[in-house]
């Protein structure tokens, strides 16, 4: 939705773009402020073990948010990630019970996740279905399959070597966070410094024009969904080993947390805008706020409220500026709101 440059020649730069950039700055400021406040004012916040708890707690959301960022920048959405995580957990538990070696099970889980993503991808790109509708369907389907596969069992006798790895820390930094950091660096490089990344931004902002420029829109979208599924499966491995428990209901409800983090990180739900550092900061911000508020014995209900407020504010803030500045009638393209 290209907005008319309102300021004429005097303000040549796109105000919306600047605001987005400023919003990421704001997240950073907020993150630093909250962290400082918590370090000073909340007992038990600023020490190595709490920091590692905090980081560990954000691992799965961070992992899924990485690919979710790419998917949302491409103007799609994947609501099935948490169910994919659950399905992958179930597969892990099932195969483990069947006596397979864990080293073999892990790649199978990743494949399962990728397959889940591929199904979403095919439905979205080949049939042209809206991803919101598709992934609401697979959200139920994958979770249901998890129950079918593992039923009511909780598989807990997982190898200590691996469960230990999941909670292993180097100083305050958990091993899982190192994994997140490596993948985040990879994803950020892909999104912000490669041709593929440029193409993702392009097709998210204007699919038709990207198609005209030779961007393989469908192929890229398909692989983004596959990556999203694989990343959810990776998150499932961390989740399973971290809690030493493979169950069909692992990670219920995480999808909304992931989407919330991505949107809070300044990614436009209409695609074409957003940065990975912004999303990572948002994941951290939500983690820190949560951790600090719980430590400060603030009731659970306030947490939900704060999350919602942060989310709405993140989109409202730049919009309020735009509304104030709006001189023309809303051009119809501005009113276009795709759910």
């Amino acid at each position, binding site marked *: 939705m290209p907005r008319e440059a309102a300021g004429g020649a005097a303000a040549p730069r796109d105000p919306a773009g600047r605001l987005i950039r400023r919003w990421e700055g704001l997240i950073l400021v907020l993150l630093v402020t909250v962290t400082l406040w918590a370090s000073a004012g909340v007992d038990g916040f600023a020490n190595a073990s709490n920091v590692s708890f905090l980081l560990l707690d954000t691992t799965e959301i961070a992992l899924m948010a990485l690919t979710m960022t790419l998917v949302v920048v491409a103007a799609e959405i994947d609501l099935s990630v948490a169910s994919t995580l659950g399905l992958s957990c179930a597969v892990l538990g099932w195969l483990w019970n069947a006596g397979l070696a864990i080293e073999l099970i892990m790649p199978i889980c990743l494949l399962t996740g990728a397959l889940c993503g591929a199904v979403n991808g095919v439905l979205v790109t080949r049939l042209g279905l809206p991803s919101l509708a598709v992934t609401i369907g697979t959200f139920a389907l994958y979770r249901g399959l998890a129950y079918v596969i593992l*039923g009511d069992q909780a598989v807990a006798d997982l190898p200590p070597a691996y469960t230990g790895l999941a909670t292993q820390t180097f100083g305050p930094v958990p091993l899982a966070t190192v994994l997140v950091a490596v993948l985040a660096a990879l994803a950020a490089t892909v999104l912000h410094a490669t041709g593929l990344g440029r193409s993702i931004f392009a097709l998210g902002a204007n699919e038709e024009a990207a198609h005209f420029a030779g961007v393989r829109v469908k192929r890229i979208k398909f692989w983004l969904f596959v990556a999203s599924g694989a990343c959810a499966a990776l998150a499932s491995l961390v989740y399973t080993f971290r809690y030493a428990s493979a169950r069909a209901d692992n990670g219920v409800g995480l999808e909304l947390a992931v989407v919330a983090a991505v949107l809070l990180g300044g990614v436009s739900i209409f695609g074409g805008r957003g940065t990975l550092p912004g999303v990572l900061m948002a994941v951290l911000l939500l983690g820190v706020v949560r951790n600090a508020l719980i*430590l400060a014995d603030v009731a659970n209900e306030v947490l939900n409220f704060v999350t919602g407020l942060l989310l709405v504010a993140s989109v409202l803030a730049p919009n309020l500026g735009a509304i104030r500045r709006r001189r023309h009638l809303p051009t119809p393209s501005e009113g276009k709101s795709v759910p």
Partner: protein
Amino acid sequence: GTTRSDVTQQTSAPAAPASSAAADPNAPIKQGLKIAFLPKQVNNPYFTIADEGGIAALKEVGGEGKEVGPSEASASSQVSYINTLTQQKQDAIVISANDPNAVVPALKQARAAGIKVVSYDSDTAPEGRDLFVNQASAEDLGRTEVQLLAEQIGFKGKIAILSATPNATNQNTWIEFMKDELSKPEYKDMELVKVAYGNDEDQKSFTETQGLLRSYPDLAGIISPTTVGIAAAARYLSSSPHKGKVKLTGLGTPNQLRKFVKDGTIEGFELWNPGDLGYLAGYAAAALASGQITGAEGEKFKAGKLGEYTIGPKGEILLGKPTVFTKDNIDDFDF
């Protein structure tokens, strides 16, 4: 590679934590103990009552108790709370585990930091806690519920179970004992046709009850070993033609079910007193944190108004026999 059989071999070695210090039965209860109750979920009336009991116990011994916890009953959210409680350097954590295994790594870290862990209501894996305050032996509960229902239906007919979530530990153990009890010859005319899951959600339990009666019109009785489930089932039955014909028993609180006992939907159900459960867990935690006990079998401690308790095998303390509530005695209870 690492397979399941490798792991079972490894873990067959005893992993029980060696008590670091010897118990000093005469040690006084420390003043100003900070003890946190971490229920499966907050906003759940059963746990609200239990934790109030626990907090009252702490007050009696000059300590301070609080209730914290997630608003939805999931394993992962409990772990965050264990971690923060560890940071807050509580003296003890009293927990009812959503997933007996998922909380263990976090609990181990808490214990490594010198925090005593007592589980109540729903146990964790043994390596995660020092003590388990058992509301009633699983065997007792499972068997008595079958006995209760059998008497109501005259040892004859199809029965079903309406449980909580498919993964609920205590319910699943109880159900095992129910099945075992049912295999005895005196129940040869009774048939367990289905285990349904209401997920401890009121609405789901309600609809599941409907479904049971629809698919088994000749159902004679339902056992619902969960407070949410039995209340929902009672509500459905009381407004349906099956009222009084299909017998219902299980675990519930008197306040929730008083109405249905009086209107004849339920003849009798059982429960321990959740307030006492929390109260006992509070005392046990205080005794642990003060060094009176270490969790070894045979140690004794005093639990205020409930009297003296002895730690049983595997670090378990048994609260006592559950009470059976009928219309004759239900008005004597208020919880």
